[in-house]
């Protein structure tokens, strides 16, 4: 029986057909080929079935639309889109949704909320001890519903949800800034996910696509020790040369740094107009990059910022043309850099 159609869209079908045939004939999976749900990926039973596939009658089918990936004998299909899938070691930004017994529930944009155990946060004052019942009772004084924090994924439970920790001074409650959400697949994983940007702004690019833009802390992370008038720290510094690695903090300093202040709800009272303006432009630049579906990196944000200086008002960046021209500028300047090096 032949089914006809009144109007036929431009046919891509030839292309599609050849794709399927190829993988069928060769009886093995081709590198970066696209598959859609229900499509036969391979009928060779030697492959191990990974994510995005299912197995029926000795045949492996795709269950999502995406590209086939092969790692040794493991065959999986990586979906084009989808929610963030936490992995151990990811630096994420999240929002507290629930305070429960000895734990917080944190929305990190994944399929399920992550948990942050009371045991995996720093106590005010930096005392290192077991958490007692009284700590449990004042959990809401540390973090309450709606608070934003950045944390690291400590482990993944068998059902796929994540457990977080904030046992470092670079993690913890977020202040002095603005929250922004982009699709998580646009964030490119790297060694470091917090950066200082030109214009006295810092950024945390959560791997989960949650971003925090904030005023660079008045005494930058490295200078913290010098800026502080604390005598103990001064002598500590006088020992000379010993400079704790960026972000990580020695136990002695942990005590002084992590007073109740790390859980304070008060914003810095002097955030100047220019800082606010810069935050707004960065916000719009990141929105523009995500509109153009460009991967978001520190360098691209800075290039976007340079491109955005041509626009007087950061509010005008939300126009569609402006967003597209920024994306183009970023790609162009990236090409130029590529040629130069």
């Amino acid at each position, binding site marked *: *029986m*032949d*089914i*006809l*159609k*009144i*109007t036929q*869209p431009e046919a*891509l*079908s030839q292309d*599609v057909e050849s794709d399927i045939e190829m993988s069928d004939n060769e009886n093995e999976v081709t590198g*970066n080929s*696209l598959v*859609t*749900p*229900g499509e036969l990926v391979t009928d060779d039973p030697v492959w191990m079935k990974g994510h*995005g596939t*299912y197995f029926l009658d000795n045949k492996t*089918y795709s*269950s*999502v*639309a*995406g*590209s086939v990936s092969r790692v040794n004998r493991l065959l999986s299909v990586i*979906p*084009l*889109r*989808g*929610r963030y899938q936490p992995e151990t070691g990811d630096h994420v930004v999240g929002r507290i*949704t629930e305070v429960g017994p000895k734990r917080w*529930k944190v*929305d990190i944009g994944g*399929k*399920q*909320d992550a948990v942050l155990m009371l045991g995996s946060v720093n106590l005010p004052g930096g005392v290192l001890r077991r958490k007692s019942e009284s700590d449990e009772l004042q959990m809401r004084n540390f973090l309450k519903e709606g608070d934003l924090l950045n944390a690291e994924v400590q482990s993944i439970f068998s*059902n*796929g*949800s994540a457990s977080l920790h904030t046992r470092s001074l670079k993690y913890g409650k977020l202040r002095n800034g603005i929250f922004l959400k982009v*699709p998580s*697949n646009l964030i490119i994983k790297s060694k470091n996910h917090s950066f200082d940007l030109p214009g006295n702004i810092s950024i945390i690019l959560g791997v989960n696509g949650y971003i925090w833009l904030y005023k660079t802390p008045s005494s930058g992370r490295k200078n913290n020790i010098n800026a502080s008038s604390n005598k103990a720290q001064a002598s500590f510094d006088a020992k000379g040369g010993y400079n704790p690695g960026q972000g990580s903090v020695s136990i002695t300093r942990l005590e002084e740094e992590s007073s109740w202040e790390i859980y304070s709800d008060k914003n810095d009272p002097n955030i100047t107009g220019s800082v606010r303006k810069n935050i707004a432009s960065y916000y719009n630049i990141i929105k523009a990059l*995500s509109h153009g*579906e*460009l*991967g978001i990196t520190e360098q691209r944000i800075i290039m976007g910022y340079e491109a955005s200086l041509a626009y007087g008002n950061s509010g005008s960046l939300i126009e569609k043309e402006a967003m597209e021209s920024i994306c183009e500028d970023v790609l162009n300047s990236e090409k130029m850099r590529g040629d130069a090096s």
Partner: protein
Amino acid sequence: MSRLELYSPEGLRVDGRRWNELRRFDCRINTHPQSADGSSYVEQGNTKVICMVSGPKEPSNKSQQNSSGAVIEFNVSIASFSTTNRKKRSKNEKRTIELNTTLERTFEQSIIRKLYPRTTISVNLHVLAQDGGLLAALTNASTLALIDAGISMYDYISGISAGLHDISPLLDLNTLEESGMSFLTIGVVGNSEKLSLLLLEDKIPLDNLEDLLAIAIAGSHRIRDLMDQEVRRHANLRASKLVK
């Protein structure tokens, strides 16, 4: 029965189609990238539907949690301007509830629910215009949006309606035809001949049912191919952007 001639002796229907012709089928995937995990837009003739999927996400209501698999919620809202006569529709209209339940039952089979324990997948469908084949269009829109959301499914579900005029089966009915004859709506699993949805609200002689199903299944396969084309078009577009 009706004054209008639904199927002329020359073999032409009210809108000039033959018995086995589909209406124009147009679909778009990822139409609302910022506001939903997955989204789609489907036009089947003059029936127009927007679908937005959010999830898998933490259930808003603890009691809905199911540790063995995802809970799937459908929410069809029919705009009051979707028919030729403007009509205010309440959310709890029996007809809408029935549509929700039918779609839930259909997609519970197709989504690999066990991969998403303790989560909710909510599918919001907005009907902008109706001209017959509503359930079929809703099914197609949901399939596309679920694929866009990256949710694991066994296969496409493609829906189509088909009616019986006298003894001749007609494919993909519009409102006029739907009101003048008995019809069924089916949802077919991928390129197989398996049905995951079959809705028949009036009577059809058993002898004619097989013909009717055959033509409807063939029509569904065509719809599946058209949806597949759109998914691949979008996938290629996206893949070309991601490569740096």
